[in-house]
């Protein structure tokens, strides 16, 4: 079985949206990172990661998110997470990810925040 992506990417006006799948583990994290790097090379600096479909994450998957945050920091870009489940939101707060990336309730709110501060 091929042709299925654990990550979906969409391009907006000056930003890109990445959608994660059911389980954000190392494999899914690496796939996410690959799409992210491609978009970075295309010149995108503002990212939304929509985790609506994600029920489970593990710390290896999250460490890849931290890599992405690092790259955006170096380049002066922004990363906003949206549609986090309670436990994922809690996890990001425990780890302190929320000090370096924003969290919004919905993709619309994330987009609005990007437009505002653009």
């Amino acid at each position, binding site marked *: 079985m091929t042709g299925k992506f654990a990550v979906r990417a969409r391009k907006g006006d000056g930003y890109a949206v990445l959608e994660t799948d059911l*389980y954000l*583990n190392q*494999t899914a994290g690496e796939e996410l990172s690959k799409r992210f790097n491609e978009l970075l090379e295309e010149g995108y600096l503002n990212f939304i990661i929509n985790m609506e479909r994600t*029920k*489970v*994450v*593990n*710390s*290896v998957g*999250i*460490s*890849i998110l*931290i*890599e992405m*945050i*690092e790259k955006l*920091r170096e380049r002066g870009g922004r990363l906003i997470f949206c549609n986090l*489940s*309670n*436990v994922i939101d*809690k*996890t990001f707060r*425990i*780890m*302190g*990810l929320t*000090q*370096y990336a924003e969290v919004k309730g919905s993709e619309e709110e994330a987009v609005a925040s990007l437009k505002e501060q653009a």
Partner: protein
Amino acid sequence: MIRLGGSALSAKIIQLVIPMEPNLELVAAETASTIAELMCFDEDGIDEIRMAIIEACLNAFEHSHSPERKVYITFHILPDRLILEVTDHGKGFNPSDVRPPSIDEAVRGGRKRGWGFKLMRSLMDEVMIETGSWGTTVRMTKMKRRGGGCYDR
């Protein structure tokens, strides 16, 4: 509502053995979540248990170097709490060698891993580690929130 009956004094024990193979931590997670559901943990509690057991299993998969490549999980069902023990027969480690993770360091080019125990400790009520040359057991306790339960109906 489907519930477990409540013989308050003795723990019901469920055991699960999984091989160290990618994604099989999800079997442990779903088994745990079914048990927690039957114990009437609330949804957030169930998700927290699921995440903690995944971290414990991944540690065993990744760090134990167990020759038999198996993880032994024991669930103790008690009226007011669920206790999970995750054991491997690997090489063990020295907990005092474990360097705590730092997000500030991580986003500045430093080490990005090392969050497993921190997450387990934050998501569960108690985490105890027994480790030696025989392997490692991580024992985690999750208390039921008052009023949320249906065990003792």
